[in-house]
């Protein structure tokens, strides 16, 4: 991994609304450092401040305080640094009355990087070559999303900022995009800043993640580090409700229709079984499992409160 810093935010704040009664602090003193050459996941519940942060990174909205630097250059003062960035922000939207190919031409010309061969190459790469002359109005959400990815790659950027890039894609399409993102980083040395609510996807593709909640970063680190030692126990017992009542007194639990997920380590297994047996609950199975990013995320968000 490179030591170059692709994205840096310093004390970044954004407040919407002028009147005190309507004022919303969407982002609060956000400090973030994303090194080049990795896939960086940006997670948070709805309304956590993800999109606001991304829009400030792209100079779409102005920060109330603090700064954003891309490759060491202040994004607002040196707008041209955004030429090294490809973006897909909150769902791909295009000029519906133009064809996919024309949309890419408009965006490439706007960025002063028009190259018809590059457009054909990208259309081929995202699987839209055959429908490139069709108006975007007739595209499905998944097709628009693919076109959005092609648009993000038009200038062959060093950094990709992708907000929910797999929205509207079928499982096959999602897998394709994941592989595509990983290849961009591993083979071409690009940096990807990825915001997604599909935590399984993030876990599979990201090197590091930051979790934002209520406008603040609550956790940040390498995925493996964050999940290290965060195993859970899957408990199958009858009656399940009684088992939940008993275990809740000692460990955080998540109930399911047929089993319980207990946030406890492998070493706690005998204690869990003992507590249940003492309470007259029949234990069928206790299995240790590695905590998923989704479980970790939910636990962190619960711990920090959320308006989602």
């Amino acid at each position, binding site marked *: 991994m490179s030591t170059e810093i692709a994205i840096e935010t310093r004390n970044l704040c954004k407040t919407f609304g002028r009147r005190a009664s309507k004022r919303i602090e969407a982002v609060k003193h956000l400090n973030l450092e994303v090194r080049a050459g990795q896939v960086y996941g940006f997670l948070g519940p709805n309304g956590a401040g993800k999109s606001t942060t991304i829009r400030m990174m*792209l100079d779409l909205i102005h920060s109330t305080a603090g700064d954003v630097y891309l490759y060491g250059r202040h994004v607002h003062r040196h707008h041209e640094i955004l030429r090294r960035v490809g973006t897909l922000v909150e769902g791909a*939207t295009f000029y519906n*009355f133009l064809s996919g190919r024309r949309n890419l*031409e*408009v*965006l490439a010309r706007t*960025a002063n990087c028009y190259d018809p061969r590059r457009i054909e190459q990208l259309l081929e790469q995202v699987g839209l070559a055959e429908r490139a002359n069709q108006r975007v109005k007739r595209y499905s959400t998944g097709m628009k999303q693919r076109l959005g990815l092609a648009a993000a790659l038009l200038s062959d950027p060093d950094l990709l900022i992708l907000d929910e890039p797999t929205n509207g894609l079928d499982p096959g399409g999602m897998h394709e995009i994941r592989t595509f993102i990983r290849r961009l980083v591993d083979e071409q040395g690009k940096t990807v800043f990825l915001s997604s609510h599909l935590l399984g996807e993030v876990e599979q593709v990201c090197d590091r993640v930051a979790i934002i909640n209520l406008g603040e970063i609550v956790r940040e680190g390498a995925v493996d580090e964050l999940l290290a030692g965060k195993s859970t126990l899957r408990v199958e017992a009858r009656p399940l409700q009684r088992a939940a009542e008993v275990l809740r007194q000692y460990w955080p639990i998540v109930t399911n229709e047929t089993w319980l997920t207990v946030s406890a380590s492998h070493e706690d297994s005998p204690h869990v079984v003992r507590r249940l047996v003492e309470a007259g609950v029949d234990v069928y199975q206790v299995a240790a499992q590695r905590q998923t990013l989704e479980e970790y995320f939910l636990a962190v968000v619960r711990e920090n409160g959320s308006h989602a």
Partner: protein
Amino acid sequence: MRNLFRAEWIKIAGNRWVAGCLIWIFPIGAVAFFAVAGLVLALSSSARTGLRQDEVFLWTEQAIGVWNFPNNPVGRLILLGFTAVVFAGEYQWQTWKNVVPRNRRAALILIKFLALGAFVVLAFSLMSALWTAGWAVLTRIADVSYGPRITWAVLQDFGEDYALAAGLAFTSTLIAAGYAALAAMLTRSILGGVIAGFALTFVENLSIVALMLIGWFLDIPRIVHLYRFTPGYNLINVASWINDNAPNTMRPFEESKYSDIVFSDSLGFSVALLALWVFGLIALTVTLFQRQDITS
């Protein structure tokens, strides 16, 4: 800059309904008018007689007269609609978020004004040519003379008058576009842009009445002099200089104790004022856009 202009051109021309109904409507309307009028003249002898009794037809006047269309209410409303689509469309289609990171905001707005102006000039030049040719056909059918004869002197005079009329129409369109662009940016909606743009044009035209009333009530009649700084007055004054080589003399309080208040400004004053309005409105739109948060 050429690429940016081309991108804007593709966006406008590619929106066939908008370009068709709000820009190409002018030349297409001219063709439709002449098709119907030609048919009527060809079939009706009374129509041909009626045309012969009308005034003298001069191709020079027909070609130049077309350029008054942007200043009449219907033409103005259509052009306001066009401007509102060009500026507010990006908000409604949520496409600013794709465009803004790719180039400087000031360049994006300036190119919109440039492309808009180019479309208007192209549409009206085309309409003017069609209108001139159309009347040539109609006068030929009705056997009416269609002068003046083309000589170097006629062409020279015509060229000057045409450039001035077109320049005036273009300036007036740019000012209206400035209002509509500002309104579109503030309301972030096409309809809002049209309504607010039309309201601003209307308020500007009525400002003389408001100033006169304020002058009467407060007994400070000189306040009416503020009207001399509006685009409406200066467009009329420049037109007067072009047509009559004299200022447009305007007496707001006619036959009253304030009848000594007269507007009669030089061509230089009006041209400078109009330039200031055009640059001011464009600069204001750019400044507003620079400070705006793109949230959709």
